[in-house]
């Protein structure tokens, strides 16, 4: 699944970043790299961006729909 299908109250682990090298590098530099755990904090209406919370460092990043579609994740059990 990709991060665009994320639901509230769940924790996901990033598996891979599928966009261009540029975007992948940017996301990694902001702390969203494969292996990092993330959660959905808010979702703007009208196909707006998702507010993603990085569990590793508590940083919140707003990501546009085009970006979240390119982030592949798996759901993990809480605390894993």
């Amino acid at each position: 699944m990709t991060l665009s299908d994320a639901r509230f109250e769940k924790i996901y682990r990033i598996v891979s970043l599928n966009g261009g090298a540029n975007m992948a590098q940017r996301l990694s530099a902001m702390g969203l790299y494969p292996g990092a755990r993330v959660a959905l904090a808010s979702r703007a209406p009208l196909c707006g961006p998702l507010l993603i919370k990085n569990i590793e460092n508590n940083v919140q990043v707003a990501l546009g729909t085009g970006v979240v579609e390119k982030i592949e994740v798996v759901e993990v059990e809480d605390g894993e």
Partner: protein
Amino acid sequence: MKTIVLVGQPNCGKSALFNAIAGYKANSSNFPGTTVQILRSQVIYRGETFDLVDLPGTYSLTPFDKAEEVTFDFLLTGEYDLILNVLDASRLNRSLELALELQALEKPTILVLNMMDEAEKKGMTIDSAALGEFLGMSAFPTTALSGKGVEDVLKAALGQLENPSPVRPLPFPPRLESFLAELTPFVGAGRVNSRFLALKALEGGEMEKKIPVSPGFHAKSEELSGKVREFWDKSLQEVLFAERHHLSMELSEKACRIVRRQGRHLSERVDALFCHPLFGYLLFVVVFLLMLALVFRIGNLLETLSLAPLNELALWVGNLPIAPWLHRLADGIVAGTVGAVGIIVPYMVPLLLMMAILEDSGYLARSAFLFDSLMHKMGLHGKSLPPLLMAFGCNVPALSATRILESPRDRLLTALLIPFIPCSARTIVISALVYAFLGTGWAFFVYGVTMITVFFLSLLLSSLVKYPAPGLIMEIPAFRVPSPKNVLIKAWFQLKPFLVYAIPLLVLGSIAVEYVQFFGLERLLNALVRPVTYLLDLPEATGFTLVFGFFRKELALLMLGQSLGVSPDRIAGVLSSAQLITFALFTTLYIPCLSTFLILRKEFNLKTAWISIGLNVAVSLGVTLSIVSLLRLTGLL
């Protein structure tokens, strides 16, 4: 003179540290990308003088936008003696990736683990000494906003300036290092070490323009990448990136312990509410209406308080028995001072304070998240919104803030829209003419018209320059209770240039008006602008105020009274309600002021600045005419 440079990721507190060392010079906010240009200050500490440079925040040394490019280019010059690498301790592992990249510059470096208070709140315990040891440099914990730990950093920095201790980058695995060594001869000796240049040149793309390589480089890097692929199934650059990432994770695990907190922090709950898909928007509207209403109210109260004694003064000067030509001078000085101190400052102070609170709390960044999809419908980008909101304070810093936009097209469009946003000067024109004489409803109406204008203009402009907007990637900083000190200083920081430069200009302008009238020159200027005033159904005498309004928008307001021969609080006796609204709306939209024009030329080019003027003149005429005729037709005015 020796130079110390501050480098770190966005919103890590570099500017706060800069201010703690150099006195208040940099603008620090809770907004990633507050610093978009190089800031330099000479600092004297314990008898030593050095240059302190604050660079825009950068996530990595692969620049992504204009501000990050500024930082990278500066680092590439090698013209500095010491790097103060500021790390956000509360986001340690991410900050370490940049630290590792900087380490490759092999310049003397001190690690500053800033925002220790935030880190502690998150339950993190960081062993800064151990971290420094791993990286082969000294490291100090600080909380720059309160000044804690800054002394230690300064002492160590002076020590380093005297006897610099070399920095060696943590090596990649031997095989990779030997590949890198094969590449270094092709990048030649630049002003920074060639291993770093080789690493960067491998990235290709924009780097090719910045780092010249000799002809054999590409063939060699292809060859090496081939070898790397056999081994790791990735390109050389990807492997290096993964290695660095791995190293930073390892370092942060070694140096940092985290005790998980239970439950949600209060700021997280507030945040959830402000970013809520429904309440977030309601709160946004409430926040902005409240802010404007407060500015109008408080401003009006202060204005009434300060105008009374100033008007006494004006009356006294008016009756002085002096020669007519001297009288004009005295009248001009009084009119300028009364206007600046009695009308403009009272509105400016509450507005600047409120903008400072919004910036410092981290609210501006949230607006980008909330309105990204709306901005996309306008053909823009969520990231365009914070500069547009900043423009309510002043258009000039807002134009610089467009540097956080990655695509040049978005940057240009945002910059062309900014001059349509009513800044503090224009808010004052609206307050003094519309709010004071016609009430809150009409003041909000004028604001509303400018907002709708911006919306449709954006639609129009973006349809002219089609381009797929890049996806939004923007960090949302933690909500913070604004520090009263920082808010006051920030507001003062913006008020000061007004007091120093604008008041003399306003006084000179008022004197100019007096003499223009004394010599009868206003007829010439009025005749020149007559087509405009005729179209807008304004008295011919108001024409030359519009000419002077180009220098500063408030000037148009001050001169309006002078041109009509009444004091500013009695204008309503001479102008009709329709004319008041026409004048306020037109002055708000008609032309970017001189400072805005100059910054447009600096940030873009002269052509863009002229386009902006043309656009504003055309749009302001169109909008003002249609709105006023509409109001007349519907019988509302």
